[in-house]
């Protein structure tokens, strides 16, 4: 049995051992001790595993804008769920459709290339929406043009739903959705803008 003081001295050596820093002669001494001391053997094993986990961690730093967007999602959600401040509801008014099928509010996406739409929304602002094929579905992206200080964007339909936040430039990009009929909603602090029917189909 080792004395507590000797165990303390060994503690530093165990770290060196676990890190693979000990010279061969001292390594053999430590190994001989570990063969007779189950407590030290467990400790050395735990240290070695910890070091392996850290060295194997090659995860990347997350882009700052992604983290900031996730942080802002809370404020948007809290504002969205505050019953004391009900929002005005505005239906977006279609002004331009690159597919030239102006059957607003029923909109049809075309398979080839990007389709662009422009809507009048509240307070002289405009909403630009781009729909493009992506990953076997459709990516909806866009930007609010005018005065805008952030907001929450939701697309809901029979095939699923997704949500995101407007970035600092009031742009958004939603994950690709399968072809179906959707409703697009932009939630601002005091107003909710709705594109009631957005049909994504080739």
């Amino acid at each position, binding site marked *: 049995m080792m004395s507590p003081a000797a165990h303390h001295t060994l503690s530093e050596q165990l770290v060196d051992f676990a890190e693979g820093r000990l010279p061969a002669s001292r390594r053999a001494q430590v190994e001989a001790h570990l063969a007779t001391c189950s407590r030290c053997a467990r400790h050395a094993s735990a240290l070695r595993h910890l*070091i392996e986990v850290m060295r194997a961690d090659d995860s*990347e730093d997350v882009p700052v804008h*992604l983290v900031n*967007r996730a942080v802002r999602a*809370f404020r948007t959600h809290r504002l969205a769920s505050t019953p004391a401040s009900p929002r005005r509801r505005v239906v977006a008014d279609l002004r331009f459709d690159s597919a030239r099928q102006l059957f607003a509010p029923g909109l049809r996406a075309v398979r080839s290339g990007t389709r662009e739409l422009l809507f009048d929304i509240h307070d002289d602002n405009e909403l630009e929406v781009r729909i493009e094929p992506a990953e076997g579905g459709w990516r909806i992206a866009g930007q609010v043009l005018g005065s805008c200080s952030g907001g929450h964007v939701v697309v809901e339909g029979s095939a*699923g739903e997704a949500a995101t936040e407007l970035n600092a430039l009031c742009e958004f990009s939603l994950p690709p959705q399968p072809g179906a009929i959707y409703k697009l909603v932009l939630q601002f602090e005091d107003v909710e803008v709705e594109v009631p029917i957005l049909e994504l189909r080739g």
Partner: protein
Amino acid sequence: MREASDAALVRACRRGNEEAWEALVHRYQRFVHSIPRRAGLDDEAAADVFQEVFVALVQGLDKIDDPDRVGAWILTTAKRATWRTVRRRIAARTGQTALDDEAEEIPDADPLPESVLVGVEEQHEVRTALNGLDERCQQLLTMLFYTQEPPAYGDVAAALGLAEGSVGPIRARCLERLLRRLH
């Protein structure tokens, strides 16, 4: 907030504490992002999954039964979002339509086997414990164990304003403290 438990952060978020939400996002951001990346998804798709998970979390805060298990909830949500994206990509490549119910299933060749997820969880636990150590231990262990080519003790000492001979013993003490926080 940095020291608060997951459950305490979730409860504070439910009360509308924005600082708690920020701490929760910072605690889990690397974990969430690494799941689609481990499945081989590119920057854009990983960003989509990342955003989807945190929006789902902020919307689902009140529905999480056990706030202590928010990490497991996040893992499941990130895994499913990753599967959906992988399925859509496979469908796009093969010209098939990704059905919504299929998107909830594990793709045939699971891009996120259990062993990978266990590794990601362990790395998250160690990084979370590391963030609870003092600044000097965090810097020292990061330099020695989270860099591809760890610097020599002399360089570590110069960077942290330590005597070269103290790097080894301080490193040992910091590792011991980290291990204690994990057990």
